[in-house]
């Protein structure tokens, strides 16, 4: 039998300092694909309600906020009708919050796999986040219907949609990896998450426009990476003017968060199998 000169697998007590093993992750792309495929296949086999719920969740929220903020409080959203303004923000938010929720439990939920077979553990939260992209696609149908109803059409900004989608996915992955790792070590991470997400939703310009925010809170919106993204999505969908500065800033913060998350994940992943 032919033996290579260099070992294919080197196991060392100490790990070299790196954020992630990109080559190894790339080698496992088929695994990532099948983990996503397995979830989608199982979901669409089990219930038709699963698909309806994907649309129903943002739709019901749109209904509630339209009644309270649109009709009663009469939040001013400029030229865009409130329901359309709202849905264009809720659509990316719903993806983000669901992706982070399922991503943060992904390692715990796959404990069987983590303790029985070797794989780059990052593929597990990555798969959880990518599965949620299908929800985004399904729920986009409602946006298209609303746009047709109100006669609003997108402008050239729609070309930015892939960039925004990538950024939102990267941010969701960063937080999923961070929280999934912490959740293995500290089980109350998952308990705290729903409240945190709720706060984050109201601290981002999703159900109201940024113009309503008092000047002294402006800084909080600038460091919130979702501000630039949500406004970017609205601009892309509804042809509104684009805030380039906010978009660049949110990318910068997203990258910083990604680096921190990968670092923490890498530090903790060696212990997953022993403590999960």
């Amino acid at each position, binding site marked *: *039998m032919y*033996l*290579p000169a*260099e*070992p*294919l*697998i*080197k*196991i*060392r*007590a100490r*790990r070299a300092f790196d954020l992630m093993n990109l080559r190894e992750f790339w080698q496992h792309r*088929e*695994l990532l*694909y*099948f*983990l996503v*495929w*397995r979830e989608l*296949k*199982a979901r669409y*086999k*089990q219930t038709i309600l699963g698909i309806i719920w994907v649309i129903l969740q943002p739709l019901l929220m749109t209904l509630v906020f339209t009644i309270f903020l649109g009709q009663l409080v009469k939040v001013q959203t400029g030229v865009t009708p409130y329901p359309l303004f709202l849905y264009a923000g809720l659509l990316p938010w719903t993806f983000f919050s669901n992706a982070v929720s399922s991503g943060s439990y992904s390692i715990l939920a796959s404990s*069987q*796999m*983590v*303790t*029985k*077979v*070797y*794989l780059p553990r990052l593929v597990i939260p990555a798969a959880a986040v990518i599965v949620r992209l299908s929800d985004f696609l399904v729920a986009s149908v409602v946006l298209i219907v609303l746009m047709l109803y109100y006669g609003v059409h997108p402008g050239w900004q729609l070309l930015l949609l892939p960039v925004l989608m990538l950024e939102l996915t990267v941010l969701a992955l960063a937080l999923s990896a961070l929280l999934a790792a*912490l959740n293995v070590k*500290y*089980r*109350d*991470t998952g308990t*705290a998450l729903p409240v945190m997400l709720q706060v984050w939703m109201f601290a981002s310009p999703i159900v109201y426009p940024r113009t309503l925010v008092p000047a002294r809170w402006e800084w909080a919106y600038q460091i919130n990476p979702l501000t630039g993204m949500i406004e970017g999505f609205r601009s892309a969908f509804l042809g509104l003017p684009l805030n380039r500065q906010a978009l660049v800033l949110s990318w910068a913060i997203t990258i910083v968060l990604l680096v921190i998350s990968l670092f923490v994940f890498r530090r903790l992943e*060696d212990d997953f*199998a*022993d403590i999960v």
Partner: protein
Amino acid sequence: MRPIVSVRNISKLYHVGRPQNEPPSLRQAVTSAVRSPFARLNGRSSDDTIWALRDISFEARPGEVIGIIGRNGAGKSTLLRVLARITKPTRGEIDIYGRLGTLLEIGTGFHPELTGRENIFVNGTILGMKVKEIKRKFDEIVAFSEIERFLETPVKHYSSGMYLRLAFSIAAHFEPEVLLMDEIIAVGDISFQQKCFAKVKAISRQGRTIFLVSHNLASIRTLCKRVLLLRSGRLHEDEDIEKVISLYINNEEDNGIGASNRELNR
């Protein structure tokens, strides 16, 4: 011939129970970090530790079928988990000159709602196979597992025998240079077990190396030309596998059921 697996001075330390200065929740971790930011840098102060593996070194050559025996808690599974990269050694290093397959459990990642066909692909990629490889061996996997008629049935409707046969068959057709197996050779009925034995022998004839953890000394004797005995995390080996096996059996008597039996006989 050069070794395909080289294990040098591997030790593995486990912390039993929760180390004293490790906070059980994120909330406490944050508050204690705020109160004394440098406390964590001082390291653990827990005495509840166990050396599951102590300074283990050995080499394996292509084609060897190596049995690993020992009492419960002797470190057999820990050794496999370290070799499989599931957990990291505390000390030491290992070099493996080939692809590695692990079969610590049967049917990892099987989804009950998916069909046999679908699970072959999911489980195969989880084990480390390439899709091209799975497609090429698909018919063989199905034939070996004897589930042809149920290929399009969700595995939740499978009998436990069918489930095990399919899972073993997928793993057995993954052809890594080094294969780790934990007590799973004894699946299915007698005729399927015979098939599994034949498969293991065929794999080794191709020059692939197999590590086999088992309590079943009969299957160890049939399959292995070499046996490693683990006692409290230490490795014992001898050219003559019968010597190793008798060491294991006598050791069992020294401080286990055997001792009490002797007292009863007195």
